[in-house]
């Protein structure tokens, strides 16, 4: 019987690996739902890398398993294998192909990052509108005994240059909604400068261009909404921003991703994406109620262990509500 040529096997294996890789790349189900403008961009990029990665893994792993089975030493077999020391074309091939792949991925990632708004933090005409009225006074008071409050003020005194900024479609425009986000052990405080609302949960309207001004009052925290595929550290003394458009109504977790102390794992709250009408209703209902409880679930569970008292909560909210230096 005539032997099947090796190239047919190689071709078949190539087709099978390609099909499996594409299938895995598009049906992995490893990512949570997409709820922001940035999420599909990140996911598509991840899918491409997973497709390439699966193909490479199958090829290398397949070769290893095949060689180990085929070239294993049989009982009683002595002597050495084929003395092949190198093969320049082959080595050039497997250096060039990964190099091309990573160059492609590098360029593509720059493009994705630009479309996410990553290259434009601080890009809008009115970025200083929410800075404290008296920046100099703030700086003069800054070196207080505790790091916490002064760093937040320092952060707010200058426009953010770090973070994820305006995506290309809203570049040069002021955001629809600005929320000041302060991280503290172990809570996020969301302040709406326009309406004076202070909340332990983030409420935003769907489809609107939202800018979060991140600051940290004590240690580094990291603001992460997995469904938005966005994460940005809130760093004491470094003003940062996170600008995005939520695309799907719903409630999503807000997670602190940077180790911030013993109860880091409990530093969780949620972002509620409303329809514009619901958001207006929420805003009307909450305007003027500055004493809304700080993330009730956390308070219920850990108030005792963390020593969070009602007075402390009130104090924090007062600071967050009106960050003018006189109140400190």
């Amino acid at each position, binding site marked *: 019987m005539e032997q099947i040529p090796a190239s047919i096997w190689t071709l078949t294996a190539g087709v099978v690996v390609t099909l499996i890789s594409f299938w895995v790349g598009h049906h992995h189900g490893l990512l949570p739902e997409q709820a922001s403008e940035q999420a599909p961009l990140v996911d598509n990029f991840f899918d491409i890398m997973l497709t390439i*990665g699966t193909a490479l893994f199958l090829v290398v792993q397949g070769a290893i398993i095949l060689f180990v089975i085929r070239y294993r030493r049989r009982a009683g077999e002595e002597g*050495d294998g084929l003395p092949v020391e190198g093969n320049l074309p082959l080595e050039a091939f497997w250096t060039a192909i990964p190099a091309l792949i990573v160059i492609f991925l590098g360029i593509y*990632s720059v493009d994705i990052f630009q479309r996410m708004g990553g290259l434009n933090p601080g890009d809008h005409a009115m970025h200083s509108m929410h800075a404290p009225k008296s920046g100099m006074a703030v700086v003069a008071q800054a070196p207080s005994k505790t*790091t916490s409050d002064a760093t937040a003020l320092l952060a707010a005194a200058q426009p953010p240059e770090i973070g994820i900024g305006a995506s290309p479609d809203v570049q040069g425009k002021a955001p629809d909604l600005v929320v000041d986000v302060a991280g503290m052990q172990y809570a996020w405080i969301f302040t709406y400068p326009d309406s004076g609302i202070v909340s332990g949960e983030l409420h935003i309207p769907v489809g609107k261009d939202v800018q979060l001004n991140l600051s940290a009052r*004590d240690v580094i925290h990291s603001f992460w909404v997995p469904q938005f595929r966005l994460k940005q550290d809130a760093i004491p003394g470094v003003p940062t921003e996170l600008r995005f458009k939520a695309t799907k109504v719903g409630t999503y*977790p807000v997670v602190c991703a940077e180790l911030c102390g*013993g109860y880091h794992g409990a530093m969780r709250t949620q972002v509620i994406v409303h329809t514009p009408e619901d958001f207006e209703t929420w805003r009307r209902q909450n305007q003027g109620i500055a004493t809304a409880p700080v993330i009730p679930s956390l308070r219920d569970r850990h108030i005792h262990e963390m020593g969070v008292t009602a007075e402390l909560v009130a104090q924090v909210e007062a600071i967050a509500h009106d960050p003018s230096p006189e109140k400190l």
Partner: protein
Amino acid sequence: MAQAQLPLDTPLSLPEHPKAWKWYDYFTFNVDHKVIGIQYLVTAFIFYLIGGLMAVAMRTELATADSDFLDPNLYNAFLTNHGTIMIFLWVVPAAIGGFGNYLVPLMIGARDMAFPRLNALAFWLNPPAGALLLASFLFGGAQAGWTSYPPLSTMTATTAQSMWILAIILVGTSSILGSVNFIVTIWKMKVPSMRWNQLPLFCWAMLATSLLALVSTPVLAAGLILLLFDINFGTSFYKPDAGGNVVIYQHLFWFYSHPAVYLMILPIFGIMSEVIPVHARKPIFGYQAIAYSSLAICCVGLFVWVHHMFTSGTPPWMRMFFTISTLIVAVPTGVKIFSWVATLWGGKIRLNSAMLFAIGLMSMFVLGGLSGVTLGTAPVDIHVHDTYYVVAHFHYVLFGGSVFGLYAGIYHWFPKMTGRLLDERLGILHFVLTLIGTNLTFLPMHELGLKGMPRRVAMYDPQFEPVNLICTIGAFVLAFSIIPFLINIIWSWNKGKIAGDNPWGGLTLEWTTSSPPLIENWEVLPVVTKGPYDYGIERRQESTDEDHDEEE
């Protein structure tokens, strides 16, 4: 056929040297590189067990979503010290200090390291560092993670944090002293008959590792000393309310700590390049490509640190530059993997424990490397940074990579070190349990991270509980996998089958001396007559020899 042929002259007898070490020699300030190598390996392994127990405690805590097994602060102290011990007191000392010290002089035909006393000093900085770390638990334990970012590190458990810093400075000093020693030893002390292209690949890897450590470690030390000053002496290098900048610390820290992953993996790559050709009975495929890729990784590895800071206070251009530089590291790494796979082709592969661990490493490292590529790109990294996806990635490269490599090295060189063979059945059981445990523990973590579970948490969203339970079961399998290994080591060291000088038929110089090697390694220094991986090329060797004769 051995790489070296001993001259036929009557061996010199050296009556002033004892023939072997006694057990108590290993507890002294001994200057022999082999004693120091074994001191490093055994000490590191003890710390591996301690760090492993911490990991088991943490995984037990994580079996459920609530914080119900460990106090959250103790959990953080465990995670900080687990990371620190595994990196600074297990993988780095075992790979560089242990295998490096034991093998480099033997492989290059030297009687010892260039600076034997410095070598002993470098080792003896490690036990106090470990003691400091463990004693820090009396003061609450450092809780700011192995990265110890300020301001958290300047606020929590400050005494323990200071002890942590001092411990790292001690091991850092040890690493710098060791690096100087390796560079000088390899550069100046290889036998004159060994050309650079006959230098075993493990030595090339150690050269690259030492250069990297020498450049990067002082930067970590500087960063940590400033942190120590901030904690204890009222300075404000990293205090934002007094003009400091917390992000500077991150740059200083990662300038060392990203290269540290290459410090952990480059010597392992070297071990792989020794183990695979010996047991596949083939010349290593692409000797020069493997040697130069070590140097390439060493150079490019110095310019990738900011990928740990994509979500931190880094300007956009940096995120882009470091995305591309990070991705480029994949190329020399890929070259090594492909070369090892090609070495298997057409071999006569001996599937013993050493080879199984080497093959296991290749599989796991490929997976870890590929997830590393996804992490290197800013858009995806922003989503998965500081999540369990990262934990999964670095455990695939560090456990599936470094630890598998260390095991491969131990199974391969144990006969040389002790003169006795390890039991193969126990070795294979060890391998199977380790392989299952590693994948069961770390594979599901990819999903956890992508779906939204941050790392370094003692309590988490209950939706992640089922997957976490699988990881915890895996961790227990991994913990039990050590038992056959420990039994094997202890039993075989005393009662194992006598190995002979060269049980695997290796061609590098260490196999030309007795097992265990004499003090001062050889009675008469060997002469290199063929390459370190010339398996199966006797026929070609003859013609090459003739060419050389003509050249001379």
